């Protein structure tokens, strides 16, 4: 997929199983929305093919649309329309819509039903967007950044609802840049960056079951030139040392308390003053960092 000269999504290949939750995880601008909108039939790929429920999302759009539910990243309602009115309108376009009262209640939209869309909070607009995606009882729900801008309680409600959808046989494809969201919800995670798939797997596979750990070393003065190499030699085989920027280094691998001592002694020997030295379990963030040398969340 390109926009002008910019390639937004390139050679991305992934499949999604029925009645699972799939997370497309990546930093802002990675191509998550473009990927989703290609599956929704909004964009025609310049190369390659997309099939959703066996249908071509562009050529077979009319047949496909009633079967999928789409939550856009923002907007999608008239500014003067009331929340309940908008949801009712979308429900009328479907043959067997969900019970509106139950759905609104479930998403906490009951008390803001009479409020015009433009006066809803960001989180309320998100919840209405999710309700509009689900009201037609789709087989697949494509949800773009479903919990962006939601407070913690609404996030939990949304997560529970998405899990319930999976339990009811709905396939959920979501994009997110929240690691915890992907880790908690997804059966499979596809990490993308610069429009390319850089890793795929279950959360457990990607974090290697939590058996590996990460040491982060942040210093006050820039590291000496060969710092990553010399630190790796000090730690021995099986670890990876990444220079994140001139003041921070990340060590990943089978690290434990004794590795922490090695790093500490290395600092002493190399006249490096640590500002912080932390040991943690390997997370999706570490996976992303390892693969790209960058942090995912800015």
């Amino acid at each position, binding site marked *: 997929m390109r926009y002008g000269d910019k390639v937004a999504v390139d050679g991305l290949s992934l499949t999604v199983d029925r009645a699972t939750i799939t997370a497309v995880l990546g930093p802002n601008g990675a191509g998550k929305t473009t990927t989703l909108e290609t599956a929704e039939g909004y964009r025609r790929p310049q190369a390659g093919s997309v099939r959703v429920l066996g249908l071509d999302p562009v050529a077979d759009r009319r047949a496909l649309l009633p079967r999928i539910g789409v939550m856009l990243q923002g907007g999608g309602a008239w500014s003067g329309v009331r929340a309940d009115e908008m949801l009712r309108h979308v429900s009328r376009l479907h043959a067997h819509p969900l019970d509106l009262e139950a759905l609104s209640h479930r998403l906490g939209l009951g008390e803001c039903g009479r409020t015009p869309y433009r006066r809803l909070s960001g989180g309320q607009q998100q919840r209405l967007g999710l309700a509009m995606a689900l009201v037609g009882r789709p087989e697949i729900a494509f949800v773009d950044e479903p919990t962006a801008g939601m407070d913690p309680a609404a996030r939990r409600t949304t997560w529970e609802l998405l899990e319930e*959808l999976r339990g009811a046989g709905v396939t959920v494809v979501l994009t997110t840049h929240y690691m915890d969201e992907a880790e908690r919800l997804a059966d499979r995670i596809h990490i993308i960056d610069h429009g390319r798939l850089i890793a795929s797997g279950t959360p457990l596979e990607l974090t290697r079951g939590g058996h590996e750990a990460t040491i982060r070393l942040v210093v006050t003065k820039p590291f000496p030139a060969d710092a990553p190499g010399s630190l790796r030699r000090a730690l021995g085989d099986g670890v990876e040392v990444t220079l994140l920027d001139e003041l921070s280094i990340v060590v990943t691998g089978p690290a434990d308390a004794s590795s922490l001592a090695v790093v500490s002694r290395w600092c002493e020997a190399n006249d490096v003053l640590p500002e912080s030295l932390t040991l943690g379990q390997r997370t999706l963030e570490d996976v992303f960092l390892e693969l790209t040398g960058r942090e995912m969340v800015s």
Partner: protein
Amino acid sequence: MTALDLSPRPGAAPFPRMVAAQAAMEARLMLRNGEQLLLAVVIPVIVLIGGVEGAKHVDLGLSHRPVDVLTPGVIALAVMSTAFTSLAIATGFERRYGVIKRLGSSPLPRSGLLAGKVGGLFVIEVFQVAVVGVVGLLLGWDPAKGVGGTLLGVLLGTFAFAALGLFVAGILRAEATLAAANLIYLLLMAAGAVVLPSSSYGAFGHVTEWLPSGALGGAIRSACLDGGVGWRDLGVLFGWGVLGTILTARTFRWE
């Protein structure tokens, strides 16, 4: 409270039901908006009353009683304001707010969206014609029974102006659409032979006859003054409608 059964049961509503829902929604939103209502009813009624009163003091050189000429002209003005200005502005902001994109992923096809929009316009127009007609009758309007000609004029006028309105909304940003649609409306109201006949514009009247505004005014005036059908005017409206449709089809972007 019924339990939420989330199991998939997809399906589009029958096409007529979708179109009816869309038309009702469009009409409701338009009537709720104060500016739109001003444009739809208040301005035409002021023009009608002002025109009839003014004609008592200034000779407009009209062939019939002023109220009989002005009332159909104002009905034409009302149709133009709804089918062109209101539609263009509403559609411009729908593009901006992602409404068209959102509906684009619903079971409602584009043909259904367009049909719903046209249906919404007709609902408003019926309301407008009723209000302007009643005010006209109160001022002594005595229309000929040209119902067929009037209906054809409203239908083809809506076709022409809606096609042109969508063209404007499809190529400009929402704010620019707002400005352009209002400006064009004012220019056509003042100089487009919609309220007053082309014969009132002297030599310029030969130009206004070919404008969609002059043709719409002419079509409804011939129907209400003589009970006839202004085929030439209807032809001009049809031509503008075809032109607007081609332009819109080539340029309109749904986002």
